[in-house]
């Protein structure tokens, strides 16, 4: 445990949608190896019967009344869009071409 290869870093970068250069992959592989080696110390803690904490405030199912409130207009929502068309976000192709 606590060792990470360049290939694993390349896989992580793909999963995280980061198009890294070869130099970046080398650099991050060595740095992540050191960081993971250090944070792996959490394994030293005997915690088999300890419940996990995901959040410091114990809240569940916070609900509100189902009432209509004003929202953004299409123009406001699209104001920062890199590309827009017909009141919609314009995105690159999402399917392979036939």
């Amino acid at each position, binding site marked *: 445990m606590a060792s990470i290869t360049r290939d694993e870093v390349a896989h992580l970068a793909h999963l995280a949608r980061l198009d890294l250069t070869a130099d970046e992959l080398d650099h991050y592989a060595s740095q992540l190896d050191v960081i993971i080696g250090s944070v792996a110390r959490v394994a030293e803690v005997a915690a088999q019967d300890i419940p996990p904490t995901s959040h410091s405030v114990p809240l569940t199912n916070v609900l509100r009344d189902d009432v209509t409130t004003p929202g953004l207009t299409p123009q406001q929502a699209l104001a*920062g869009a890199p590309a827009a068309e017909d009141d919609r976000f314009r995105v690159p192709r999402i399917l392979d071409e036939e």
Partner: protein
Amino acid sequence: MTAVDIAGAIASGQVTAAEVAQAHLDRIAAVDDKLHAFLHVDVDGALAAAAAVDAARAAGEPLGPLAGVPLALKDVFTQQDVPTTCGSKILEGWRPPYDSTVVRRLRAAGVVILGKTNMDEFAMGSSTENSAYGPTRNPWDLERVPGGSSGGSSAAVASYLAPLGIGTDTGGSIRQPAAVTGIVGVKPTYGGVSRYGLVAFSSSLDQAGPLGRTVLDAALLHETIAGHDPMDSTSIDTPVPPVVEAARRADIRGLRVGVVKEFAGEGYQPGVEARFRDAVALLAELGAEIVEVSCPSFGYALPAYYLIAPSECSSNLARFDGMRYGLRVGDDGTASVEEVMASTRAAGFGPEVKRRIMLGTYALSSGYYDAYYGQAQKVRTLITRDFDAAFGTVDVLVSPTTPTTAFKIGERADDPMAMYLADLCTIPSNLAGNAALSLPCGLADEDGLPVGLQIMAPTLADDRVYRVAAAVEAEQVRRRGHLLIEEAPAL
């Protein structure tokens, strides 16, 4: 002048809010090229807000306690039509279509927002060196960092560019910058201040809070921005703790103060430890009962944090995909959406953000989840239990805020683990969610730079950190004749 003095002068008509705003804008124009505290100065917006306060006063309307007081806002909060970058190229030029709740409350209180301050990209860092727009400098020594990630706000307040600042604290990002610039910074109880419109880094840890040159100023700002908000489902629906009253009370006779045993020794600068010991002695002289307390799991807070925060960030930052706002790279008509996303994120994110996204992706990946993220969440429980046990015997806990004074720009830039150590003492309160404050407690002998005293109180007992800090501050001023920040060199 303090924020209280400024508000009083405006309310009594000695000066107009417009004059106060203009004086601060002039100072920013004169000295901020040395510091780079601001990423964007909103001259028109600030003058308009100040004019509105003056008009309200002229019309005889009641003014709030901070009406007309200028403020430096960390560039991680949305402010309608004002550039909001989070220190990242991926949001360069983005103007949000809505106000964050913090901004809405500041506006309602008549606070004059001068502009947006520099920060480590997406609040990931302890030095503000991770900003895509270049570092901010520490007004005490321009070769050194102002802390981070809220380093633009800390530098602005410490150098009198603004009497008040807003920061966010995910692992110490308000308290550590406050400590190394000689000012007051507070991380309220998690859920005390709404996160609506605060661009998320690690949602279970992020908390907005005040920076000021005095404890009372910070308390007034805390009260202004705190309180339940239906727009943030993790916002706590209870009354805001009486922080202003506590800051005015400043009496700690009989209070039980626990010194965290684990936060000393190797890695702590001698000058930091010396000033911390002085502060503990001062607390005893003021009538507090000092007890040594052990929090054995705190030693695992840093590794647990560097699993939990990157995990949450890897998920939160997935929203920056170049589709709906911000940067888009490589959309040449042939590239697929996945290729455009990967190109955009590679071009838009800086090294620390990429590092943390990959670390989080790793910690959450199947096969490693239980050993890393799952185990870190259990350690989080143990840290909360350490706090609960300690607060069963003492009213507040104290430690140095950060193990060293401000380090030099570039010194830790390519050594992430060395950088992460800056948050060693502050992280436990983020994991457990309780309130914590940093107060200046003197200058280290070896470098003449400010040292911070951290005061921690139980969840929702935010008033206690103000009460203790105000008592210490009052005694320091009585002995020195002035606030520590007044010893900072002129720019």
